[in-house]
């Protein structure tokens, strides 16, 4: 990562945020008719939709686990979601993201309830502006809850990073492209367990501690928005009777 631009000036970032401020996050649960559970997340300029199908019989049979369900998350970017059109279909990056998200979700889902089943989580990025894996995991978690999948927690993700030698929360697009470090984190908010952790760039130990702390705080804030989205959907259903 090279740095040429000044990304933070007088405590304000390019988009006017302070160092520990999130972009605006909107979450809506149950947006799709066909899926068993679904969620739409707008996170800054990111627009991400997640759908859950299952638990259902895992096919082909050889992928079944006789003791528990497999979590099969697929992260996919729309061709029109980035500046230069992306060729449709999975690439190495999206395969890796699918894998780390699947593993993070697997930790909280009570998979032993559904032997031989698969729980398929499809994450579709419609508009991308840095931090899509965090938005994707956050959407997937709400979609799982919306599908009624038993979990011991609703996971949530948020990134922190370093720009112009300052540790900041939730990198925006320019900050991601020209910043010095990016640290996406997913947690189970009730226990504080870390479910996903990646980093690229350069952080000192003290900076890492600060960034992790900041990311976890961001996760907890997003977690409240997740819960509100679920409450909003099911409360309105309950009121309508």
């Amino acid at each position, binding site marked *: 990562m090279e740095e040429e631009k000044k990304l933070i000036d007088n405590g304000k970032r390019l988009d006017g945020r302070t160092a520990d401020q999130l972009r605006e996050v909107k979450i809506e649960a149950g947006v799709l008719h066909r899926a068993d559970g679904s969620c739409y997340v707008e996170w800054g300029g990111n627009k991400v939709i997640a759908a859950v199908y299952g638990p259902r019989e895992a096919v082909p049979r050889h992928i079944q686990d006789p003791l528990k369900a497999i979590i099969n998350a697929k992260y996919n970017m729309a061709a029109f979601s980035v500046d230069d059109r992306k060729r449709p279909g999975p690439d190495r990056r999206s395969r890796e993201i699918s894998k780390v998200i699947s593993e993070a979700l697997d930790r909280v889902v009570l998979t032993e309830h559904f032997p031989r089943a698969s729980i398929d989580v499809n994450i579709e990025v*419609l508009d991308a502006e840095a931090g899509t894996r965090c938005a994707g995991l956050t959407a997937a978690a709400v979609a799982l809850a919306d599908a009624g999948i038993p979990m011991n927690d609703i996971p949530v993700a948020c990134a922190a990073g370093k720009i112009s030698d300052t540790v900041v929360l939730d990198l925006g697009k320019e900050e991601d492209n020209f910043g010095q470090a990016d640290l996406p984190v997913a947690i189970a908010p009730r226990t504080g367990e870390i479910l996903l952790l990646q980093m690229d760039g350069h952080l000192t130990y003290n900076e890492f501690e600060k960034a992790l702390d900041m990311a976890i705080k961001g996760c907890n804030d997003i977690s409240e928005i997740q819960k509100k989205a679920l409450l909003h959907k099911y409360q309105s259903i309950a009121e309508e009777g």
Partner: protein
Amino acid sequence: MTITPIIKRDYLTKLAKQGKRADGRSFEDYRSIEIETNIISKAEGSARVKIGNTQVVAGIKMDVGEPYPDSPESGVMTTSAELIPLASPDFESGPPREDAIELSRVVDRGIRESEVIELNNLCIEPGEKVWICFIDIHIIDYDGNLFDAASLASLAALLTTKVPASRFDIGEDYPLPMKDPPISCTSVKFDDVVLIDPSLDEEEIAEARLTVAVDQKGDIRAMQKGLNGSFTVDEIKKVIKQTVDNGQKIKEHLYKSIGK
């Protein structure tokens, strides 16, 4: 066939004999349509179209590239549709299969052959540089009639597309040159009834399908018959009449939702 489709088929054909449909529509009624444009900031044009519970997002990306040797002064358009697993328990990820390819080709033909996009106005340097227009269609929620939803979403996205000339240092951005588009309507037939805008359940038991595109004069601009059943000549005439009636309404709706 498993047991559920048999029950559904019995139910739908019984209703059809009484002139009814499961969602209360008449045979000539289209579901309600919602069109929302400019929803993707990274795309040059975009639209979300809902027909009942069916939901489709189309995005347009433009790039500069070489023209085809046989049409050196003409821009290039390509259409692709993805039946992503988000939209239905029966869609799988991977390269597009037969039905995704048929869908994208029918949409492509409706736009290309009726010359909706003025491709001859998308030339930058004859034989060297032209605009390439990518239409990408994502099915988000599948409840039948993808043909109409996909072509309507593509048209709405194209009609709001800005050619990003300034990004390529070739002048100022300008709206994509477009002609008045034809509108497609799809009808299906089962058990000797013909109905427009099939829902998923109706589509699953359909014996034959016919998509017709009509322009503002009521002239026919494209057709595609699908599935292994057949139509009588009278049924085809009826489908065309239904398409003319509904097509006009849909077009008014389309123009209203893009503010024209």
